[in-house]
């Protein structure tokens, strides 16, 4: 089963602003790009053309793993606003 189908089972109330803000300059020189594969929601994708991260923050499960795994420790990571983000019903 692909990830989209998994994420489709979740209830989200997306904000208009991202709560995940990596330092884009640091990302340019990042070797591992850990965030692009450890994320359980596939939030981060690397855009080769633009040489920058695409951040699908609306899909975030708010686990905090990217903040800890980021090679440069450069993600300004906040919880979404109280009324926003993911809601788990079966946790």
């Amino acid at each position, binding site marked *: *089963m692909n*990830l989209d*189908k*998994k*994420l489709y*089972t*979740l209830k989200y*109330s997306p904000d208009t602003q991202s709560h995940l803000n990596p330092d884009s300059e640091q990302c340019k020189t990042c070797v*591992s790009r*850990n965030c692009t*594969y*450890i994320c*359980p*929601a*596939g939030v981060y994708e690397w855009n080769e053309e633009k040489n920058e991260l695409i951040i699908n923050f609306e899909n975030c*499960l*708010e*686990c*905090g*793993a990217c*903040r*800890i*795994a980021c090679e440069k*420790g450069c993600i300004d990571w*906040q*919880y*979404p*606003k*109280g*009324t926003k*983000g*993911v*809601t*788990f*019903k*079966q*946790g």
Partner: protein
Amino acid sequence: MLNKDNKTDVIVVGGGPAGITCAMLLAKSGKEVVLIERGLFAGSKNVFGGAIYTQPTKEIFPDFEKEAPLERRNIEHNFMILGEDDSTTISYRKDDNVSYSVVRGKFDRWMAQKAKEAGVILVEQTVVRELIKNGTKVAGVRTELEDYYADVVVLADGVNSLLAKQIGLRKEIEPKDVALSVKEVIKLDKDTINQRFNLQDGEGAIGEIFGGPMLEILGLGFMYTNTDCVTIGLGITLDDLIECKYRPFEFLERLKQHPKIAPLIEGGTLKEYSAHLIPEGGYKKIPQLCDNGVIVVGDAAMLVNNLHWEGTNLAMISGKLCAETIIEAFNKKNFSRKMLSLYEKKLKDSFVMKDLKTYKDLMDIAHQRKKAFMGYYLRKINSFFEMFTSVNSVPKKEGYHKFIKSIFTDRKLSELFKDVWALIKLVWSILV
């Protein structure tokens, strides 16, 4: 309600088992308590395996077995050792009422309701962004909308505890000190679950899964039965996940396809996917537990016994000991670090710290020898049973000899010595 300065006796941040327990017990003793939870409702951001444990839960909620939303009472524990395509299972069955499967979205919400009934002021959908300090003392919290003040602030904000980090009670978490967990709740009808897991209505089974897609890495899988769902998930230490460059949900997909697991969930439909971190740092990574006007409880304090999948119980009991400490502090009108360190003492005297201390070396040794203990020996257990059960006209003695010889041929003697030494060290550290 609060007076016009937004000042209350105690603010508890985080509506999980630790925070709710602490808030409820304080309210019961007559304190004015504000419990702040960032989710839509308590439990809506929380994910676990999982089972809550009867004895400690009863200590806090004596009537929970009659009142709380429970799924099944666990009567069987299965330890599943998976090879690439084979498996060995050890199953222990006894209806001794140790634990129940629950859904956090329902159970935490129920606990929060109990806290409200005890007089707790529950503020949901509100994120605490930072702690407010008055000199060296924590004096309150800043939310998106308002500032609230209190004599004591309790940090029950879970594994990421950005707040404990903010005031320097702990360092940044390292990838090796957390496991990233993904899980799926799969809908199946009740009778199918009963049949597949050999259960009666209301009875549940737990699966602890070793190996399979997680051979040679520090990861464990889990399975729980709910009334009409089966939960399957796994947790992998974040440093291993980084190293193997594999996506967490791909591990889960492979686990679901393992011949031991697939028939158990066959025909089910995915109800919900989720992810959460588990604190794995253990005893050595426990942060500073209190300071002037502030105490840390539950996952925020790394109080998880990962080998036994115990967390909610450590959370509840730490919340309870924290409440007892705060009541004492109010009696003495003293909220200094020195006074609040009574909480540390209480934790040390309880099973919480004793258990974490027992396993203090576990994760270090597991990290060093993971290829052996999470790979080689799991495969060996399966190959032993493969040999033992095979019927192939080869004399049994030959089979035994070949198996024993294989241990010394496919593993260097020096590695075998290191394994044995690590095992002795581990057993010593646990028992002595």
